[in-house]
């Protein structure tokens, strides 16, 4: 028997409280299964197990605030139970990496590998809206987008049974949502079924949606925004005190991405429309993969570059506060996939359904002000990351090119970077690469 402890869900987390158990004593859990909903100063998150085992007793009470590292759950080891064989996802290397903490991000393979799909489905199947049987191994043989697969896994939908309406019968995110809606009402089968209702609209409580009222014990607190602000303040003070920031800025012509976006949006239903941020984030992710010194972590006095780009995206929460969950392998996603992932991530951030890994493993963060707000933003680096990218509002400006002046939509891109890792030359190369990528948006 050993104990699972309160995990750290980000560099700024010192304590947390369990607000809902997703497993019960006697349940068998596998590495990656969700075990609890944890409320931190910033947001509510789903926490997964790092081990296989049989659930023993709860070691903390619901709503009890405990420090990171405090044992929260006793777990029987694999020796106490028979091997479960093929349904055990833990042996897949990608699953292993999936559950690793942020200290070893360079070991994370891309989750797009087919081998990771089935464990991923297993990992997430019990999570929520358990109206349908969990997705089964082999579901990845159905032609579908990675996002549709992920969504299906999360909603517990078997892709085999979903009618695809995309190219060559491929299953889209919309198809999965439709299938989920159709199966709603079927008997619930997941561990969370007893408490997982359709999250009531926060309108009922009149409070921001930061703390979904479906989470037992996490009554929305009027002080939540203040707590988030305090946690953010502490982290940013640490960042400014320990990281030697330098700042760069450049203005980028967005005429081509804007034209490509408008043309694509014309033929699309609103659910598939793009926003300019999708192009900006994609360019920022691809450039981060190519330019050394901006993507990775500063830990123990040295820079550990990351091969994967997990792009942190600053999301404003309604009612105040900010979280920056990661879009995993953002450089590998198409603009359309990234847009889908972004919408999903933002919606979950605001509903308090982020996953631990999303909060803990961003390798570089982007803050985008969208098409409102000011023209440029110089961000503060989120430790232990080494760079923060800022995109201001998209602004029409007079633009001189080839001796001619025209009016173009433009954006001011900024970089705040860690001088221990890079300098103006390298940082400049990064912003220039973003600019180049946005000149050929068709290839993004």
């Amino acid at each position: 028997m050993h104990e699972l402890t309160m995990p750290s869900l980000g560099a700024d987390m010192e304590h947390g409280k369990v607000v809902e158990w997703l497993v019960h004593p006697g349940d068998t859990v596998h590495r990656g299964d969700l075990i609890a909903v944890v409320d931190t100063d910033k947001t509510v998150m789903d926490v997964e197990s790092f081990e296989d085992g049989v659930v023993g007793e709860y070691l903390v009470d619901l709503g009890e605030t405990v420090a990171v590292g405090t044992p929260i759950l006793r777990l029987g080891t694999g020796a106490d139970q028979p091997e479960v064989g093929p349904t055990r996802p833990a042996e897949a290397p990608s699953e292993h990496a999936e559950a690793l903490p942020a200290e070893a991000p360079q070991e994370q393979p891309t989750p797009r590998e087919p081998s990771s799909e089935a464990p991923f489905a297993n990992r997430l199947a019990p999570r929520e809206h358990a109206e349908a049987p969990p997705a089964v191994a082999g579901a990845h043989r159905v032609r579908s987008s990675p996002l549709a697969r992920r969504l299906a896994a999360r909603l517990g939908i078997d892709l085999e049974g979903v009618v695809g309406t995309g190219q060559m019968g491929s299953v889209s995110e919309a198809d999965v949502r439709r299938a989920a809606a159709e199966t709603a009402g079927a008997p619930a089968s997941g561990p969370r079924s007893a408490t997982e209702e359709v999250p009531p609209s926060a309108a009922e409580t009149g409070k921001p949606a930061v703390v979904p009222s479906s989470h037992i014990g996490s009554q929305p607190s009027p002080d939540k925004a203040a707590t988030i602000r305090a946690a953010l303040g502490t982290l940013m003070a640490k960042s400014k005190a320990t990281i030697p920031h330098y700042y760069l800025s450049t203005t980028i012509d967005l005429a081509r991405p804007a034209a490509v976006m408008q043309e694509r949006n014309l033929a699309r239903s609103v659910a598939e429309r793009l926003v300019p941020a999708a192009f900006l984030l994609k360019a920022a992710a691809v450039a981060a993969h190519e330019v050394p010194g901006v993507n990775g972590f500063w830990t123990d006095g040295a820079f550990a570059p990351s091969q994967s780009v997990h792009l942190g995206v600053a999301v404003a929460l309604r009612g105040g506060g900010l979280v920056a969950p990661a879009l995993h392998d953002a450089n590998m996603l198409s603009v359309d996939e990234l847009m889908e992932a972004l919408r999903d991530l933002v919606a979950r951030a605001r509903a308090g359904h982020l996953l631990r890994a999303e909060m803990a493993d961003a390798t570089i963060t982007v803050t985008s002000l969208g098409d409102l707000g000011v023209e440029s933003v110089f961000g503060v680096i989120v430790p232990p990351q080494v760079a923060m990218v800022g995109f201001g509002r998209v602004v029409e400006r007079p633009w001189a090119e080839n001796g001619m002046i025209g009016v173009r939509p433009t954006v001011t891109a900024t970089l705040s970077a860690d001088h221990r890792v890079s300098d103006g030359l390298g940082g400049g190369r990064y912003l220039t690469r973003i600019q180049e990528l946005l000149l050929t948006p068709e290839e993004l």
Partner: protein
Amino acid sequence: MTPLDPRSAVVAALREIAPELEPDEIDDADRLRQDLDLDSLDFLRLIEQISKATAVDVPERDYPQVATFGGLVAYVAAHQT
């Protein structure tokens, strides 16, 4: 699809996205983005909700017409079949 009262439909869609808004406090002249604090993703979700609830699709070229709460209500009213 049963036609809904356009104002109720817009209020319902809006509260899905911004639950803290009180229907009584929303003015027709309120700009969805600047005054009601919707970002570009929120705005897309709103348009999507409207489309689901009323079957009124707002193409991108018509976004300027639906920049305000009142504008969106009028747009839904005019395009509802």
